[in-house]
């Protein structure tokens, strides 16, 4: 028997996950093609802004997937506190970790886009602020988990923290909105978009389609990463169980 068939036999998830991986790879190619080639140019932009606006498709993809990761972590945390089963805790942890990767995607693409458009890498745009703070909360969540050894204590405390942090996110968003509305705009040009308004003015037909395509592609990538991480955590936990049995 080859190693592959051995592996396939030991793990029923092997083929589905491999398929998902291939799909995710293809999805990324499709996303790049749709974002850079298929989408027509924006009607009201020119120069650097015209080129930069294409990153918006990837920005949006990261945005949606990071939000999904965030929601999964909240559901997993509530699930753990209600059911006290580590299955839920692993869902929450995988949601946070994969969500954070896409969170960094939001910030990177956002900064690249903001420089030519708003003439600054960083602005306290409400959505950007909320995304940044949420990622900081996630990093804190991961550090916090590291500091605890007992699996159930760790799951319980991490879930409690995730819930508390979740409550604070809408406050951060609304604070940042008011913060922006009363502070002067520091960069040059009377750019209404910089106030945190809608970034794509008139969405053309191809732009709408492209947005749909790239978001779907990013969701496929998210699912692939999420299931890998989730399965990995399950295996880790299984190893831990076996070790405990061994020592009994």
């Amino acid at each position, binding site marked *: 028997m080859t190693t592959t068939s051995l592996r396939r036999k030991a793990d029923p998830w092997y083929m589905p996950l491999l398929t998902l991986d291939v799909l995710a790879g293809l999805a990324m190619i499709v996303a790049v093609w749709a974002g850079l080639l298929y989408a027509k140019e924006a009607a009201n932009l020119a120069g650097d802004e015209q080129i930069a606006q294409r990153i918006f498709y990837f920005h949006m993809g990261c945005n949606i997937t990071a939000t999904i990761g965030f929601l999964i972590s909240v559901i997993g945390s509530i699930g753990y506190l209600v059911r006290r089963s580590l299955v839920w805790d692993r869902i929450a942890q995988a949601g946070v970790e994969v969500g954070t990767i896409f969170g960094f995607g939001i910030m990177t693409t956002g900064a690249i886009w903001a420089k030519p458009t708003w003439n600054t890498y960083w602005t306290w745009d409400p959505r950007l602020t909320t995304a940044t703070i949420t990622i900081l909360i996630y990093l804190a969540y991961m550090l916090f988990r590291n500091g605890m*050894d*007992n699996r159930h204590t760790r799951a319980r405390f991490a879930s409690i923290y995730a819930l508390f942090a979740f409550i604070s996110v809408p406050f951060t968003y609304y604070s940042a909105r008011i913060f922006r509305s009363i502070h002067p705009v520091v960069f040059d040009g009377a750019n209404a978009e910089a106030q945190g308004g809608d970034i794509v003015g008139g969405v053309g037909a191809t732009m709408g389609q492209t947005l749909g395509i790239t978001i779907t592609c990013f969701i496929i990538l998210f699912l692939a990463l999420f299931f890998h991480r989730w399965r990995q955590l399950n295996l880790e936990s299984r190893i831990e169980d076996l*070790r*405990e049995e061994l*020592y*009994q």
Partner: protein
Amino acid sequence: MASGNGSTGEPIVRVEKVAQRYGRKVVLRSVSLEVKAGEVAALLGANGAGKTTLLRILSGLDAPERGQVWLGNVPLTNAGHEIRRYVGLVSHRPLVYESLNGLENLHFFAQMYDLVEPEARIEAVLTAMDLWHRRYDPVRTYSRGMIQRLAIGRAILHDPPVLLLDEPDTGLDQESVAVLTDLIAQLREGGRAVLVTTHNWDRAERWADKIFYLADGSIEDGAEALRQR
């Protein structure tokens, strides 16, 4: 609260197949024991045999992984915090505040246990523990034996029907041990259930009506273990 003298009737503490582990280490495999009202039970065992773990579970500080603890006919898990009124614990640590004096410590715990007009009770406890003359001194200035006596006083302050003593003779001089022996006898006569751990076989025999021997995470017959010794 006291139910007559001597050990009678139903067990007031019932431990059923309690198992506990910390991470990979199995501390209690399957422990069952019973203590009746007016009965003193001694729990012996080597260091790390799980005596303290068992007492933590009995006092409600930790939940057991498996098994159940009954106080009277109430299961301890999910019983709510009110059940803690019926248990007193002398732990390895004194559980008193060293920057406060003896009187303030007992006053604070009297408030936590909702004692009605606690002054008389606090005076009785401090006098019995021979700390009344030092009541205004911060606990920081107490000797080890005095702190241990204050810890015992803290545990019996609310006169619980169940008393858990985790090596209460640690740090006590001979005279204090004699009085601890008297106290345990008094508690037995008063119909309290006492579970005491110790390293000292002679003391265990002197104090207790029955002896449990904890080894390898489960209870062995105390008399049997004693014979083998």
